[in-house]
């Protein structure tokens, strides 16, 4: 990523979260990964002044308590949080999920490849793109 700020991962499945962590390690992405299990936990983290705001948010859709859409609804209506790019990372290929996510102006919708090598490639492309692109946070 372009900055050293943490990457936030909102994902209820701990195995999937470990896969993301492992892929980032394999790709030598040095950003710290902050993993939260649902939208509610993510909101609590983001609203706490003590925490560093993430450079990007990787968001699963189907989660207990507060799902991805509920999270997006709050985040994209929050003047402080709306600027953080949110990239959906899901297994859902549902047309409805795709359209609804883009209505919230997500900065990408990536269907998780099941194959680990392809998954690493996907994370690599995400990292390349968000290294090329500037990010909203001012301090690197």
């Amino acid at each position, binding site marked *: 990523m372009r900055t050293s700020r943490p990457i936030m991962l909102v994902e209820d499945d701990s195995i999937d979260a470990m896969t993301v962590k492992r892929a980032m390690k394999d790709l030598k992405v040095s950003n710290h990964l902050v993993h939260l299990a649902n939208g509610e936990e993510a909101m609590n983290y983001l609203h706490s002044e003590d925490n560093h705001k993430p450079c990007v948010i990787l968001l699963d859709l189907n989660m207990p308590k507060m799902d991805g859409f509920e999270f997006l609804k709050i985040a994209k209506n929050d003047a402080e949080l709306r600027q953080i790019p949110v990239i959906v990372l899901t297994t859902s290929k549902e047309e409805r999920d795709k359209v609804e996510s883009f209505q919230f102006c997500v900065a*990408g*919708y990536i269907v998780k490849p099941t194959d680990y090598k392809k998954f690493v490639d996907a994370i690599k492309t995400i990292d390349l793109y968000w290294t*090329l692109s500037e990010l909203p946070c001012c301090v690197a």
Partner: protein
Amino acid sequence: MRDCKPILLLEDDTVDAMTVKRALKDLKVLNPLVRVGNGEEALVHLRDDNNIKPCVILLDLNMPKMNGIEFLRVAKADEKLKRIPAIVLTTSKDDQDRLQTFRLNVSGFIVKPVDYIKFVEAMKIIDLYWTLSELPNSEQECLNANIQTDNACRR
């Protein structure tokens, strides 16, 4: 790109627009490039139902009549247009521009490299990312417009 819909480019500088066209050609990206000279022209194009909605919008910031930020303010408040990813492609390194455009939910802010080879490299990463990512256009919409989806847009 993941589908074959056009890429909409908002760019008032003809030479810069030609560079984008040339880079896409060099990368064998087959999506047609529709170029408009400012935000106002872009809105007219996007709101004309005879035109196919683009898969992504690449936009410059400094343009006459309606600039990039003014365009984003309108497009991102329009229920029919807000879902199209908008990527800023500019020479501006201004912090204010960056912050303002991310608040308007852009899907990337890329400072144009002056060197052509580096510019092609940047366009390649943009293409790669938006081929990996799904796009908001419904498959039915693509079928209706007789457009192929899923990576078909390659030689």
